[in-house]
């Protein structure tokens, strides 16, 4: 069972993602900020991270840079309210991005693709 870490400062998003992704068979853990995120990743060893770009105290794109520097092949999906972040070159270090929605079909597809890509390279 793949373990997914959801990093988002909005509680309802964490709950929504946890519930729906658990139903899909994933093990879901959450973090409400980027505080000590690298340590959490080190400890929990998730297979994939869903990362909110705009949190109150943290910039998701900066966190993405930190994650990539330390865990170069950990899949990261950016979760955002708007796609204007694409102007920032840092965003291309993400596997995929999804615009936040209550319909998680796209997110689930991207999770499946990112994990499939990772596992295919590990064989």
């Amino acid at each position, binding site marked *: 069972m793949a373990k997914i870490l959801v990093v988002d400062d909005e509680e309802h998003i964490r709950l929504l993602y946890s519930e729906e992704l658990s139903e899909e068979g994933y093990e879901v853990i959450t973090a409400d900020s980027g505080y000590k995120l690298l340590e959490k990743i080190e400890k929990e060893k998730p297979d994939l991270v869903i990362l909110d770009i705009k949190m109150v105290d943290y910039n998701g794109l900066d966190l993405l*840079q930190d994650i*990539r*520097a330390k865990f*170069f*092949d950990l*899949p990261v999906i950016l979760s955002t309210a708007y796609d204007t972040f*694409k*102007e920032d*070159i*840092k965003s*291309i*270090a*993400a*596997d995929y991005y999804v615009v936040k929605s209550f319909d998680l079909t796209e997110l689930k597809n991207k999770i499946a*693709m*990112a994990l*499939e*890509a*990772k596992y*295919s*390279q590990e*064989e």
Partner: protein
Amino acid sequence: MNADAQINVNGIDQAEIIVSIPSYDGRYDLAKTVSVVDRGLSEFFSSRNSVIVNCDYSTNGATKDIFLGTETRIPKIYIGSQDSGGKGLVLRASLQKVIELNTSMFVIVEPDASNIQPSWIHKLLEPLEKNFQFVAPLYVHHKDEDLLNSMLIYPMTRSLYGWRIRKPVGGELALRRELVERMLEMDVWNQYVNSEGLAVCLSTLAMCFRQPMCQAFINQPRKTIRKEEPEFFSYFNDVVGTVFSLMEPLEKYWKRVKWSRPTAILGIGSEDAEPAEEIETDLDGLHERFLGGFRKYEEFWREVVSQSTYNKVQEIRNLDMNHFSFPAQTWTTILYDFAVAFRGKDDEYREHLIEALLPLFYGKALSYVRKTERMSVQQAEDAIETECVVFEENKPYLISRWEEN
């Protein structure tokens, strides 16, 4: 390669960093590149033992004199070859120097960038100090620049090997010793790699080995002279030949890969990026070259690509300039069919095959330039990303055709 052609002026027998600069018959300002590399190493890596290596595949001795005559603080080694016939071959001799000099970090710097800065050396080497094994450059670029890379090399290497290295064709690259050692053991050093294909080959091998890779953001455009015919065909032949030819020895790597993964981007500072210069693309010229291909290769195309793809190419032929469009699906299947046709053939057939691909590439390039005419660089990049996904989605088609042959 002739070992007598090496001149180690300072008797260097150990170096932590090697910067290797290829040269050919006094083309480009080698002295300027050497000076900039010297400044970069002296300014940012003064505590390290470094050496600048010139890999010269000239037919005369003028380049050697320029290189050795350029005053530098960093010691230099000249490697010359008048009988190698290729840049890749002589650059490979500098890769061997990594082992010989017990080097930990290796950089290739092409001399054709007229605006190279000492900071580029820093940006390429810094990630290696953070334990990345391979660094490819990510320059500021105009959306119509280097269409061969954007339309063919990048989508192909990305879909085959599963890593999004935006500029696998160089010009500059950096690697750690461990990766160099593994690369030198591989049986991939063919005629295409030994010519202009070395950078694509090194990028490809780095992707196969799945070592920590990153792209170094260089906040400037890489200013260089655009390659025109017939030089462009020679380059096209070498880099496309490299991608196709590596598919055989690296089959076990690419066949298992699905979709693609991003890499880290390092070197993003707070300084503003310098905008790229405007490029004027000869749309009519691209159209004429595309249509000219039908006169010479129509029957050959019919043999290489599937019937449905061939029919689509005929439809594209009939589109006028205002409605010209070369769909990603058609382009993808053409490239996959050509890659399959390349497999196991003799040199003569392969040269003809790549020659026959060129007019179709011109058609694809025209379609992209027209489509992105009013787009920003970011929007054009999004369009390229969308095309890359089509390559990834169609990979099962490539695998099934590959296995049929």
